[in-house]
């Protein structure tokens, strides 16, 4: 898991996450890791926006990001080629204000 393309001035970064051990998929480790990372991004790194892209067929990934407060911002049509066909790339992001609301709701 990592924060990349960090931009000091715009206070943005993009995120990538991979649970390498497939036996552990579907047990919420990704969600838990993501909650730790967003907490770190907004309370320590002082970001304003954290974004990511995910392939449209990665439904469990998308659900996990939604759970952690990421919002759908649109999709790049046919931007990814896999298994013989083009797929859309979904753009998602969480803003500092989104994250704060989520904390208030959870508290």
């Amino acid at each position, binding site marked *: 898991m990592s924060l990349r393309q960090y931009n000091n001035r715009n206070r943005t970064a993009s995120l990538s996450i991979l649970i390498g051990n497939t036996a552990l998929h579907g047990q919420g480790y990704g969600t838990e890791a993501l909650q730790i990372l967003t907490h770190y991004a907004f309370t320590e790194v002082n970001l304003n926006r954290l974004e990511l892209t995910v392939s449209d067929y990665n439904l469990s990934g998308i659900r996990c990001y939604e759970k952690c407060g990421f919002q759908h911002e649109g999709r*790049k049509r046919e931007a990814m080629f896999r298994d013989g066909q083009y797929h859309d790339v979904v753009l998602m992001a969480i803003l500092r204000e989104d994250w704060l609301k989520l904390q208030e709701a959870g508290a």
Partner: protein
Amino acid sequence: MTDLLFNKLLQGERIYFAGITPEDMEIYARWFSNVELQKFTTYDRVFPQTVDQAEQFRQKGIEQGRYAFTIRLLTDDTPIGNINLKDIDWRCRSCSVGISIGEPDYWGSGYGTEAMQIVLHYAFLELNLHRVELEVLASNERAMRSYEKVGFQREAVKRQALFRDGHYQDFVVMGILRREWQAKQT
């Protein structure tokens, strides 16, 4: 006319695309130092650029395999702007495009639209790409209308992605697919 002109592929009705030469850098530095222009074209801080920095931009384009051009007038070769295809992904056959008309005298007269038509022709029929995308400041309605005219569709809004003029502003992501572009060519 000019020996810089390669062929009809990179030519429109009023403009053509030429390679970017070190001699162009003086005028690039002037364009890149125009704050009103930079506010719309840079994704980082606005800051006046020197000739050396313009040359670094040119070198970076070469290193990253960009297809970058100086936009020139057909009538007298006057350079009026810059356009480049970058972030080329040969496997997914996609790229993004950046454009700026550097000379304020040529704003609002359709030169950007014409340049975009030429670059899409090149991207789809010469580079054999499947998709071209771009990002534009959400407040730049004039540019978005121009992009829509050549067939780009609005695909996403990146909220608060850029800090400018004291607050965070949105970017709009736009994209066009080869078959959409082809359907418009009659």
